[in-house]
């Protein structure tokens, strides 16, 4: 039985996850192995994007019919406990490592969400959790909830998958919420290349978020979803969005009430699309939950 061993880095985040896939591809030059061993021995810290990516990667391996074993995952390190609390091991091994552990109050544990249920999850679970964590009302967070719904609509409309993995974590000490959504679909560069050939992967990501640009010309696809995400999270909230897809990786940083795309030149690649949202909790504008008539 052929096998490949993937050693996870000390920190698994949007940047380093790309190296994990590169390592995997390098070791699969002669075709996919029968078994993949994921070594958790060196893992010391894992970001939300790392959790969603790793989960999708394991799902993908199983989807391809590969056996996937974990190694050194039972170490009692910070990241291992965090993954256990995030229900990562329960989702992939069937059980938590420690039955007494469970989701932390500062996280919305790892979930693989189908598009059909994504909006109910965002509205009924994630939104109220966030409102409670930030001690604000739901209405103040509606724009951010819609951002997540836009991403799930994009997964359904533009990837060849119908689900995405989501994980959220609140960092009260630094006034930040990180939310990562990842899918293992065909990715942004592939879709954009169908409309704009010969474009680099970073350019494709920047093109994909352009207001009015869509790779589909249907009444509902008018290139507004990702623009809304950036306007809301980066432009209004002053947070950050990082989009990683295949060889492309672009950070969208706040600049003068707008948003500045900053391509990241980094090795490796990210199958599908991972969107990493950093929401500032100290700049959320309170909104009254009062229905009104639309005034033009």
């Amino acid at each position, binding site marked *: 039985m052929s096998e490949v061993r993937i050693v996870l880095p000390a920190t698994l985040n949007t940047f380093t996850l790309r190296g994990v896939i590169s390592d995997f591809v390098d070791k699969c030059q002669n075709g996919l192995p029968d078994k993949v061993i994921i070594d958790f021995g060196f893992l010391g810290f894992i970001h939300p994007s790392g959790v969603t990516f790793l989960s999708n990667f394991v799902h993908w391996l199983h989807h391809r019919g590969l056996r996937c074993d974990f190694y050194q995952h039972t170490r009692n390190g910070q990241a291992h406990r965090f993954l256990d609390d995030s229900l990562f091991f329960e989702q992939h091994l069937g059980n938590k490592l420690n039955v007494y552990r469970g989701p932390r109050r500062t996280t919305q544990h790892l979930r693989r969400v189908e598009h059909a249920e994504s909006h109910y999850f965002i509205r009924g679970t994630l939104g109220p959790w966030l409102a409670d964590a930030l001690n604000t009302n739901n*209405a103040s967070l509606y724009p951010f909830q819609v951002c997540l719904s836009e991403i799930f609509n994009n997964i359904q409309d533009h990837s060849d998958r119908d689900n995405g993995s989501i994980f959220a974590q609140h960092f009260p000490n630094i006034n930040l919420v990180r939310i990562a959504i990842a899918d293992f679909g065909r990715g942004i560069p592939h879709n954009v290349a169908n409309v704009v050939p010969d474009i680099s992967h970073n350019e494709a990501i920047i093109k994909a978020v352009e207001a009015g640009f869509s790779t589909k010309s249907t009444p509902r696809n008018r290139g507004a979803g990702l623009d809304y995400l950036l306007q809301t999270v980066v432009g209004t909230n002053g947070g950050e969005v990082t989009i990683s897809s295949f060889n492309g990786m672009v950070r969208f940083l706040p600049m003068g009430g707008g948003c500045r795309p900053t391509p990241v030149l980094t090795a490796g690649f990210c199958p599908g699309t991972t969107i990493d949202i950093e929401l500032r909790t100290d700049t959320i504008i309170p909104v009254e939950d009062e229905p009104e008539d639309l005034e033009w």
Partner: protein
Amino acid sequence: MVIRIIDIVPGADTGTQGNIVYLCLKKLLETNHVVIVSFEDIETATSSFVNAAFVQLLDVLSFLEFKDRIKVTKSGKQINDMIKTRMLQESSKIAA
């Protein structure tokens, strides 16, 4: 004539839901000069929903006619902002 979105679709989340609302509005506009669209019990609306439900109406109505004949009520700030932004952007494209 008043229609409640919640009586037609379970939410304003997807383009598919928006398209159902669009077909309903288009039919009602044939026999009613003004249609009042109530978002009662709907908290949010995505761009896909608004594109399908309202922006599509710009194929049969001018923007001025839309504002005159479609009245949106019992909608929160996020929904109103989304409808206004999408309608203004798409109508300005048509005007250009």
